[in-house]
């Protein structure tokens, strides 16, 4: 089967991958490029664990044709941190113990980032709405919502290098 080359920016870096006709972005990222942070949960768009940002918009990689991503800017959880400094959302998830098995976390963070990037001061209802497409089976959502609200309230504070950006035990 002939393969199609697709080029895009992934977390700020230029990437190129060959995909089969009809191959989804989830597969292209995981198997083609090796970004395993994007997960397979259903392949049907009902669980949200494959949420990525495409040109800033939250999208489900399992329902996105890889061939349509040429020239786009894609963001996954692997690109959230700036070097050793965690994104405020990542810091907040850690502080609030907002992950147990961790399988939904990558997609959840991307959905949350999309929210905070467009609305820096969301209400609790805004947060619930923004993550309503992301299934979590472990946490009961409460710590996730609290983490996102906390990150929003701390937005604008620059993490200093070293200690503050690193996870504390």
């Amino acid at each position, binding site marked *: 089967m002939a393969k199609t080359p697709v080029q895009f920016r992934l977390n700020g870096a230029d990437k190129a991958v060959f995909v089969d006709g009809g191959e989804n972005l989830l597969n292209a990222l995981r198997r083609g490029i090796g970004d395993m942070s994007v997960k397979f949960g*259903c392949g*049907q768009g*009902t*669980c949200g664990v494959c949420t990525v940002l495409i040109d800033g918009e939250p999208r489900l990689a399992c329902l996105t044709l890889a061939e349509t991503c040429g020239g786009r800017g894609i963001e996954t959880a692997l690109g959230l941190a700036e070097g050793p400094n965690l994104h405020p959302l990542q810091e907040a998830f850690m502080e609030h*113990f907002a*992950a*147990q*098995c*961790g*399988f939904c976390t990558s997609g959840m963070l991307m959905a949350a980032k999309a929210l905070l990037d467009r609305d820096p001061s969301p209400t609790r*209802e805004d*947060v*619930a*709405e923004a*993550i*309503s497409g992301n*299934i979590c*089976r*472990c*946490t*009961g*959502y*409460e*710590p*996730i*919502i609290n983490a996102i609200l906390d990150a929003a309230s701390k937005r604008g504070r620059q993490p200093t290098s070293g200690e503050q950006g690193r996870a504390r*035990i």
Partner: protein
Amino acid sequence: MAKHRGRGMASINYPIGMNLGGDPSQALVHSNPEGKFTVTLSAIDLGQGMKQVTRQIAAETLGVPISDVYVDTADSDTGPHDMGSFASRGTHRVGNAVMVAAKEARGVMMEAAAEELEVNAADLETDGRGNIHVKGAPLRAISVKDVAIAAQFRQGKTIAGRGIFLIPLSEVNAETGEMSPVSCYAHACLVADLEVDDETGEVTMLKMTSAYELGRAINPKMVEQQLVGGAWMGMSHALYETPEPYYPDIAHGPRDYNEYVMPGPGDICPHDIAVLERPAPDGPFGGKGPGEMCANPVLPAVANAIFNAVGVRIDELPITPEKVLRAIKAQGGARPQGAPAGRG
């Protein structure tokens, strides 16, 4: 045509570990050349936090800070046998095995320290910050790091330990059912406050208030994770979930998360939790395991609260709006029961 508030409660206990016992867990603990420890297991972390719970138990038993301990799991080539992560057995069984292994490793470490300091091991204690010193004389001390180097390169000792924890298999009497199911139980009581819409049968959770007794909270944040997440699952079981909506008919089984309904982030309610600790005599630092029982009291508490709200008993799970509405109609309308407290 109204929304009716209701309140219900339930109280439960939960057996800790595989029923009847016979479920062993093993652990290995060893130090690297500089006194940093690895706990090697084959136990599985499903998100309940097996790695961190055993890490804290090991650090406590060894007498070293948490940052000097990591847990490695699960590889069948390197991790000793563990029965598995189920039946709320992790903290109790694996935790105990880790304690045994850590005790042995600590014993060697203290002997090595005693040799370096030229005292008896019984006169030494750890400070939990990476040092070992003579009791009552904190300046007569040596770092765990230096002990490890000395043990390995001069004394020829291995600072390591192995542990197994097994509750022997219980028999079961065929005629009476006499048996020893488990050695300890966790407990809980939960109050559900909710609202029933008598036009649609929909139930809205308003609040949960609970008390859980779990022996010893090895890590209070992780206990909170289990209790909050588990109560959410209990609410989900009570009101939403089934792969056979017309059980025992297998038709119309849900195929994905659109059809398998669970409460989302907009459907949750506040949960006010109290934690009690009555240590299990044979638990690691008394620990039992909250991982399963956290969901259980919610189901009946919700059913009882629905009765309180509109006077109908739904004895079949899940309690869907359809079931509630049919029952209300069969009854000729909602019949709120009033405050459940006090004599009716």
